[in-house]
């Protein structure tokens, strides 16, 4: 299962149908709470809440974590690293001379891994379940961000796909010229640089032409109207409410248990 097929099913789920702005604000709220909190209880509850929300929305959270394995692995590795190096006390579980793993350091490691996952997940959920056009509409019309900037970014985003395709064409075009023979880091870096330079030149030209197209279609001439209206409905109430619930409950449970710790404490 690739990321795109996940994205396809995700867009039709209740979370996917929610308004982009609501999702973005909800994700920002959860992330903000997690960024300032350093304890494992807050991250654990927030992560659990998000996974519950995702499965209620018809997603398979474990499969999502598997598909996005680089992030999962990164979280696990940083947790492992912390467990190895953390100086905290507790029962000694493993002693290899210079590495000592204790219950305390293990807990610190788990906290780091949980926190990493819990912080990454809201953003990924928004990315996977949101159509860029809808997000742009919301940003410009609801949040009143500068429309020129939002629309230009949206148009540029489309060209990223073109660039990805061009990269592989460039690789064979250059091999056909006999480039890329040099093994070793210097030769490879040089070849990569050359290919990247050509891509850059092409991209700049493309950007110029796209700007010309947009100008010819009256972009930036003055006040504009919008063909699409961002819609808000019952499903947004649920999604927004769920996000607030996750953020508030993670924070309050941790505070009540006396485990909560701010990042600066």
């Amino acid at each position: 299962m690739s990321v795109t097929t996940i994205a396809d099913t995700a867009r039709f789920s209740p979370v996917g149908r929610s308004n982009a702005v609501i999702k973005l604000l909800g994700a920002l709220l959860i992330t903000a709470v997690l960024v300032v909190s350093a304890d494992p209880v807050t991250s654990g509850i927030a992560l659990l809440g998000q996974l519950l929300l995702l499965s209620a929305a018809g997603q398979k959270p474990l499969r999502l974590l598997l598909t996005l394995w680089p992030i999962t692995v990164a979280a696990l590795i940083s947790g492992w690293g912390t467990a190895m190096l953390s100086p905290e006390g507790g029962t000694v579980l493993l002693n290899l001379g210079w590495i000592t793993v204790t219950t305390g350091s293990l807990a610190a490691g788990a906290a780091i891994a949980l926190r990493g996952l819990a912080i990454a997940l809201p953003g990924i959920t928004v990315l996977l379940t949101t159509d860029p056009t809808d997000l742009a509409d919301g940003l410009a019309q609801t949040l009143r961000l500068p429309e020129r900037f939002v629309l230009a970014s949206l148009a540029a985003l489309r060209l990223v796909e073109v660039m990805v395709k061009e990269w592989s064409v460039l690789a064979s075009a250059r091999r056909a010229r006999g480039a890329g023979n040099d093994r070793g880091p210097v030769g490879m870096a040089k070849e990569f640089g050359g290919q990247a330079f050509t891509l850059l030149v092409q991209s700049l030209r493309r950007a110029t032409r796209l700007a010309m197209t947009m100008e010819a279609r009256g972009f930036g001439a003055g006040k504009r109207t919008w063909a699409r209206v961002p819609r808000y409905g019952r499903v947004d109430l649920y999604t927004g409410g769920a996000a607030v619930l996750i953020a508030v409950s993670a924070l309050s449970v941790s505070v009540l248990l006396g485990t909560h710790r701010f990042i600066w404490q």
Partner: protein
Amino acid sequence: MTSHVAVDQRGAEVVLTEFGWHYPGREQPSLNSVSAHIRPGERVLLLGPSGAGKSTLLHAMAGVEQDPDGESRSGELTVNGVDPRDARGAVGFMHQDPETQVILARVGDDVAFGLENLAVPREQIWARVGAALAEVGLDLPLDHSTTELSGGQKQRLALAGTMAMRPQLLLLDEPTASVGEQGAAELRDAVERAVAQSGTTMIVVEHRVGLWESVVDRVIVLNDDGRVAFDGPTREVLGDARELLQRQGTWVPNWTPRTMAPPARDEQATPLLEARGLAVSRTQPGSRTVARRRRRERKAWAKGTPTQADIYRNENVIPAAADIDLSVRAGQALAITGENGAGKSTLALTLAGLLLPCAGTVHATKALAGDAPADPSLWEGTELITRIGSVFQHPEHQFLCSTVRAELEYGPHQAARRGAGPGVDEERIESLLARLGLGGIADANPFTLSGGQKRRLSVATVLASAPDVLILDEPTFGQDAQTWRELVDMLVEELERGTAVVAVTHDRELITALNAVELRLGA
């Protein structure tokens, strides 16, 4: 401001008075005291040699041309009596690159974009979007992805987006240059319908006269120095200016430039490259897997152990083309033809050893492979360029150096460094420069050349390594008649020399001029 423009008038009036354009730092002006009066509803075909300022003129009329120092412009140009820069919305403009004419991800949103910018009330937008899509014959749902459209469809989408804005002047800058033959005819028909319905004034720049002859009622021909050479009714000008147009490299109807005679067909000529039961696909293993396979297979080949190349094949891939058997023979031309999406380019890349087959084999005979393995996909870059030269569709993808001369020397230099060639043959380089008319610009940066010069250079860079097989992807696509003739002569000379030429092409004239055997895919 747009309020100056009379809204009830359907087509715009364009008046050029001694209009000129001289870019800073250029010796010659691009446009030189051009005067013309284009009446409302007139349809004009603008012709001239490449570099004569046709695009500059269209850009100026669209109000999108940048005047870097404020002094490039001279004389006067008005659309409906006002400066075009103040008549935005009254002027619609299309250029030749389909990829950058699409702005948004969904078909409906893309057409609506211009209407939003003109501040058309939301209630009216979707009706106008639907009407514009119907007019250009794009029968697609509004939420259809724009990425999935073909080049021709993208151009028609751009036309819909432009016509929805109800321009009074429609400017088309080589709209069919990147579109196949059928797509070009469909686009032309869509333009004709749209313009007839709206009474819009239209000016089109194109070098395929035959395509637009029936649509336009006036032809303006520019000279080398950016002056008007002919201006009048279509039939009259096409008759009077025929010789000038041919010299300028314009494709006038019923004419093919005269080229050198190709060698006779010879089915007994030495085979160089053979494909058996070949199936090809763009879906390939990752680049690391391919490199690892290459190393492992090379080792096995050096030891003389049998090849295991098949283990990397993916059975689940749907091939772009399958069951292909062909022979590429020395001194003979092979043309690969077929509809868009029939897998022609993919086949060319696979023959060139740049993609792995998904079934069957590509086999280089002893005459071609020499002391290298028989599977071209195992060759090192330097082994490849002295055996098979591949010319890609976009010349710029293959430029590696900062001057024309360095570009030509690159291949031989690489080969010599790795002991696979005799080194840079200055005589061959000089003769290539001379043959291609690139001698005067040997120190120019390849990226700054004109379209035709880039195409000739991209072929020459490959010829510099003297490959035995030359594989070209749409070499004549979008080229003017002048470049076309030079390309064909160059390829015929290579055939005479015993080089095999394989061309992916839509161009019937090229197939005839090379006396090529045709392999039609998807038939």
